[in-house]
């Protein structure tokens, strides 16, 4: 236990010490606190930066991704100099520069049912900065089982949600969302896009809630859900109640230990970018190139949104956005062979599912989408 602050720390945290809600005792409390941040991406960046700056004594970072140039539009903890490096190491170095006083633990591994309890039990609170349903349900259940607050934040395009799920005092994530939407109904940020500053707003709100919970000040968002829309600049609050039928925190809970979250959500926790329709459907960019040389009239079906065609396109491809496939199927001939593609292969995989259930059989899914085509065949096209 660290009982007091050094002169340097008093200077560093003087703006906190001036406020009676924090003060010297509050700052010492923060110094003795620990927070686990799941994900060091769009949400994890501002969360970790502000918690480190605030002097949280111990911060754990879980991620096993590598910094990519397309992350830098919003993942401000990383930088151009750390592209290609491990995210947890990139983040640790930035935090250590911001505040050398604190302990930073890094977990360069996926957060799974096997390791989550072991990792999370070390920390006072857990911050959910993930982007997929399996990891969200896992994060929630771990927090419920360990009796710790889960500071929730979620984003999509211009919408954000923030809450504090703390089953000891209020509802958990599953009380509101007992089960995830079926796979494919909600696009990921890699497909749907996200305003870069949005996770900044939402993550900063999460960091605010974390500090309030640790200090025991103010009114945290327990039993409240904040809904933010950046386009309308609207903040709405709704009341959340404990769900008496909640399967993890209700009186008759039947889920008592971590489950297989990928099975529960019907999707892999890894990024939707990498999904395919299954090996039987796949065609690689190189294979497609060879096919087109033999059969230049092969039908190419581009299921991206029309504005994406301005970024890159394959000449001669027919464009029907995924959302319109079901209505516009009559434009396609099920007897004619076709290759379906999107940005990276996941929307086209869903298009194939839809067409397949309507009786289409002669289809192939361009593995890795037009980005793979740009990387392997037509290098004049950009990857996005």
């Amino acid at each position, binding site marked *: 236990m660290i009982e007091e602050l050094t002169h340097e720390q008093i200077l560093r945290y003087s703006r906190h010490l001036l406020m009676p809600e924090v003060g010297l005792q509050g700052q010492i409390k923060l110094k003795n606190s620990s927070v686990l941040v799941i994900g060091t991406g769009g*949400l994890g960046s501002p969360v970790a930066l502000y918690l480190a700056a605030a002097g949280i004594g111990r911060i754990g970072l879980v991620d*096993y991704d590598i910094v990519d140039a397309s992350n830098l539009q919003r993942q401000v903890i990383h930088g151009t100099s750390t592209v290609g490096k491990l995210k947890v190491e990139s983040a640790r170095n930035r935090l250590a520069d911001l505040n050398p006083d604190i302990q930073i633990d890094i977990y360069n591994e996926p957060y799974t049912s096997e390791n989550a309890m072991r990792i999370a039990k070390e920390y006072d609170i857990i911050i959910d900065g993930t982007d997929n349903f399996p990891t969200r349900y896992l994060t929630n259940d771990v927090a419920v089982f360990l009796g710790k607050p889960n500071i929730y*934040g979620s984003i999509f395009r211009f919408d954000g949600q923030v809450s504090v799920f703390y089953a000891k005092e209020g509802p958990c994530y599953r009380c509101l969302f007992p089960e995830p939407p079926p796979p494919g109904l909600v696009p990921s940020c890699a497909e749907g896009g996200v305003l870069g500053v949005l996770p900044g707003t939402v993550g900063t709100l999460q960091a605010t809630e974390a500090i309030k919970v640790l200090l025991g000040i103010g009114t945290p968002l327990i039993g409240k859900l904040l809904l933010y829309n950046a386009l309308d600049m609207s903040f709405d609050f709704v009341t959340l*109640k404990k769900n008496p039928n909640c399967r993890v925190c209700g009186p008759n809970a039947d889920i008592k230990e971590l489950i297989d979250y*990928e099975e529960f959500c019907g999707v892999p926790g890894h990024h939707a970018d990498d999904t395919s329709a299954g090996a039987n459907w796949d065609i690689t960019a190189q294979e497609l190139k060879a096919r087109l040389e033999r059969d230049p009239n092969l039908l190419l079906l581009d299921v991206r949104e029309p504005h994406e065609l301005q970024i890159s396109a394959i000449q001669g491809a027919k464009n029907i956005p995924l959302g319109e496939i079901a209505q516009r199927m009559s434009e396609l001939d099920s007897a004619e062979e076709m290759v379906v593609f999107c940005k990276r292969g996941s929307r086209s995989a869903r298009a194939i599912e839809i067409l397949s259930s309507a009786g289409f059989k002669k289809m192939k899914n361009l593995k890795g989408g037009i980005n793979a085509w740009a990387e392997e065949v037509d290098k004049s096209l950009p990857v996005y």
Partner: protein
Amino acid sequence: MTTLRIPTPLRTYTGGKSEVTVSGGKISEALNDLTTQFPAIKPHLFNEAGELRPFVNLFVGEHNIKDLQGVETPVRDGDKIMLIPSIAGGSLIPNPSPAGRRLE
């Protein structure tokens, strides 16, 4: 008349509209009006049996209709109905590919 707020992921099905004006004395009637105006949104809210999908959360004012009378919850003129979606966005924290999953 009641205002129904549409979250971004579902605006594709309402012609980009963020708010739709609906009529009806209770939630089921308001939703019926919504799906009549925008039929494409229907499968995203209701299952094949015509029941509200479990991941769809509707709030009247501040309150979840699940804590009130479900789709029978009355709505009055000027009430605001909000559709609250499950969104998963955030950082990318991928798990191993299915082949690499630790099943042992």
